[in-house]
């Protein structure tokens, strides 16, 4: 083995040792920082939880308590209205004192397709914003 070869091998070995040492140091450093950060986060979370727990009774004191308001009774009104629905759907007669009326059903019916204007049989009704 020539002197140059022995020297090169020594250099390579030294480099490998140095690289290994740096890698190990990096692992240790990263772990250390991560651990510290996790510890800090956990500490903050614990402080926040304690703070919230301490504040909860205070907030409960400040916020107005929910008031149970009973549903009122009402004198019967007998006027009747008829609320229609889309063509092809049975009309629903409602009274001003009967059950709730929902228009949800009308959204399930297809919207009518307007047709091209026919010959001017009757005067058109306006749909203009005002």
């Amino acid at each position, binding site marked *: 083995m020539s002197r140059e070869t022995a020297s090169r091998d020594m250099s390579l070995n030294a480099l490998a040792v140095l690289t290994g040492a740096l890698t190990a140091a990096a692992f240790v450093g990263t772990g250390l920082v991560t651990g510290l950060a996790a510890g800090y986060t956990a500490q903050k979370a614990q402080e926040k939880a304690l703070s919230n727990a301490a504040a909860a009774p205070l907030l409960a004191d400040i916020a107005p308590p929910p008031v149970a*308001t009973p549903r009122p009774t009402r004198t019967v009104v007998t006027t009747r209205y008829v609320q229609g629905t889309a063509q092809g759907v049975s009309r629903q007669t409602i009274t001003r004192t009967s059950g709730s009326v929902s228009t949800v059903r009308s959204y399930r019916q297809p919207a009518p397709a307007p047709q091209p204007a026919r010959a001017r*049989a009757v005067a058109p009704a306006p749909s203009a914003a005002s």
Partner: protein
Amino acid sequence: MMRTLDARGTGTATWRALGTYVHLSTARDAVLGPARQIAIRLLADVDRTCSRFRNDSDLVRANAGAGSWTNVDPLLVQAIAAAMDAAAQTDGLVDPTLGRSLEAVGYDRDIALIPPASSDPAGIPLPARVGAWREILLDPEGAVRVPRGCALDLGATAKAWAADLIAHSIAAESDSTVVISLGGDLAVAGPDGWPVAISESIDDPGDSEIVHLPYGGLATSSTATRRWIRGGVIRHHLLDPRTGEPTRGPWRTVSATGATCVAANTASTASIVMGDKAVGWLTTRGIPARLVDTQGRIVRTARWPEPAGAS
């Protein structure tokens, strides 16, 4: 009140109510008189119960009692139910809890009483509380509980709901086709449809496009009307509930149809609020609509016919 009779025997009456124009037509003129009486009575009931500008209305009392149950006319309960349905269909874009937001930008009285331009402060927009409309409680027997801190405004849907109510109430009393338009919210009931002239302004129908509506409702919503200036800032009545500000999207006017006028109005109002996404939203739902952008260009969704003479 104006009453006309055309050569084919149809009758038409026009007058003002709910702060806007009323146009009522019946296929048989003999029906017009009784029909008009039904319409006048129902419009008076709707105004007495649903107005945000009458101190004696049920809605004003319910808003004043927000957080508690208030006895109201069941008619208001039904109008609010329709508004809540509209909110549900649009994920809250058509929001009935915008009363305070409208007041914040100056819509605090009948539109006829708002100065077209004033030096008063423009007001700070107040967004609606997200999902507050879901907290509205209704008793169909005649009571409502407005969420605490909220005020209801039914301006978006009440006219459309009233148009449905009136059209079908009249049709139930006769075999005549009837059409009623309340400020652009139009409902047809009866055996036949009716031609409808669509325009951006009732005062200037020169640009109108006429289509035949076979049944149901057709509504036109526009930012070109109900406008005012406060503190140098232009305001209008169609608010985006997410910001509390008048909408500033690409659409100036939208007309849409629906199985009812409420459904049509929900679609037209929501389209203006959602802006860029409106065409896709309408198309997905199969809703025929005609949209006019801020430059006056017209877009029609599927099933809305091209105007006569267009290639």
